[in-house]
């Protein structure tokens, strides 16, 4: 009787040991994956701020005005050429 019990216990113990090994392996693998994802997130963050900077640089009012004047031959609006549209009729 006690012989059979110890065989069962031995099998259980080996299973437990193997699952521990497996769990540790999985944990490390997932951890590395997490690391990788985090570094991708950081990289995207950097890219985002770089793009924001580009947007601000390209959208600079000085640059827009220069382009509008040079390429599109636009001129600033003057009061003499402005007509205001009022919302409600009186």
């Amino acid at each position: 009787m006690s012989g059979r019990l110890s065989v069962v216990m031995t099998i259980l113990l080996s299973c437990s040991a193997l699952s521990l090994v497996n769990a540790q392996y999985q944990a490390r693998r997932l951890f590395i994956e997490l690391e990788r994802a985090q570094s991708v997130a950081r990289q995207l963050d950097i890219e985002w701020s770089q793009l924001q900077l580009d947007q601000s640089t390209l959208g600079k009012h000085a640059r827009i005005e220069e382009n509008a004047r040079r390429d599109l031959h636009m001129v600033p609006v003057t009061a003499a050429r402005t007509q205001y549209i009022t919302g409600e009729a009186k």
Partner: protein
Amino acid sequence: MRPTSRRATANKGLPFSSSPLLAVKLPAWRSRFVLFAMFAAFLALAGRALWLQGLSTDFLQKQGEARYARTLELPATRGKITDRNGEVLASSVPVKAVWAIPDDVLEAPAEKLRALAALLEMPEADLRKKLDSDRNFVYLKRQVEQETVDKILKLQIAGIETRKEYKRFYPQGEVMAHVVGFTNVEDSGQEGMELGMQKTLAGVTGSRRVIKDRLGRIVEDIAAVREPHDGRDLVLSIDSKIQYIAYTYLKEAVDKFKAKAGGAVVVDAKTGEVLALANLPTYNPNDRAVLTGAMLRNRVITDTFEPGSTLKPFTIALALDTKRVTPTTVVQTSPGRLTIGTATISDSHAHGPLTIAQVIQKSSNIGTAKVGLQMQPQEMWEMFTTVGFGQQPKFGFPGAVAGRVRPYKSWRPIEQATMSYGHGISVSLLQIAHAYTIFARDGDLIPLSFQKLSTPPVGQRVITEKTAREMRAMLETVVSPEGTAPRAQVPGYRVGGKTGTAYKIVGGRYVHDYVASFVGFAPASDPRLIIAVMVDEPKGAHYGGDVAAPVFSSIAGNALRALNVGPDSTVTSIIVPANGPQESM
């Protein structure tokens, strides 16, 4: 041969108990010696174990850990600075510092060093000079962009290393330079809001301890991670569109009059937010190789000057408020000169009898002085200090100056008279713009802010609502054809304001250089903006009405349009019928 044969027989046949060796009497010290030696050996082992396990265990564990555990620094990014609409004004981008171990690098072939010098944008001689050093660590260049670094690393020169750092970029360049400021290579603020808000902008670097495997991959955290805290983003009250407008027109005026410097500030009269603050001369914060003190100076905030006539409305407002005069009270200003004590003050033109409203409109020194002399010095002093003159400003901007208002006890009558029209007192342009909120806002003073506000601040009443309205009406006449600043008119909007033309003081004496200024609000029916303009040492013209007023007009017109403020003056307007626009007009 006998002894040999005898031993052989003894080994073979004798039982142990009868071995003759047992009968041999050895001296007692020999066994004791063996015992002692063994005991000593065990003692040594125990001592060693105690030493390893007990005394030097920390050291040993540390050494062990050092072979697989690493502490990583988790860098924190400095917060961004944006304008009120979210446009980025300053942002940090990771770059690399390139450093070298000189001895190793110098062994590289000459053409590689030449290529390196070209990539670092420095003459080869300079590079060699840097490398000609006994040290093991030499920075070759800091804040190198990633693309260049990749090219450098491709050269595969031994002894060239890189280190991660951040570089701050300022996309709006010189237009925003004075407001935003800049940081140094260590990423700490040096000027402007970068300096003023250094504490919240700067991040806190974190760290984590990890186990790394043979390939350098992180396997596991072995201690709690100290999270890095990125710096908080800062949203300024500045509107980059209005800032650009202010900068452009100020620059136009400074160039036209070949002025030494200029400043302009636009304040939201409803909330006290500073919408624009322009300074000239200026600099490009991205390229600070040729900085001078004059360029760095934020004249609007850190320079004081005698404001001159822009201060007259405060004297008149006090007189109205204390019911000493009304807008229609007549003051005799003829013959254009007034002697007080030993000194004589004068108007630039003789005017004869003027009403109080006309005193403001024509900017009469004598009229203002006569009104000013009716008041107690203490009352005037209180008025000046309440609106912030001579008081340390709380703008949250580094280097803001208090200006100077002398204590009223030491005022002589002539000083009181000159102070009533803005001489013998010094203020900064931002202080004047701030003080004008009492006219633009029905009599209460609100604090200024460089950061975007979610709720408007609570004002502090300085003059009555009635006085403020009367003052607005008077200040509106200044821009009429009979006033001193008809050129401040803005088509489509009613505006009001006051000119100022003051001699400069150099070394305690007045010199023949001027500061032309104009401070005003628009639209006059319900002021939305307060705009103050100052031009330092203009050539060709020097009156505030000729130099600064046109700048005010351009900024006000364009800024109001940018803010979608409807015109309050006569304009051609298309009335859209209630049932929608129609084709035939």
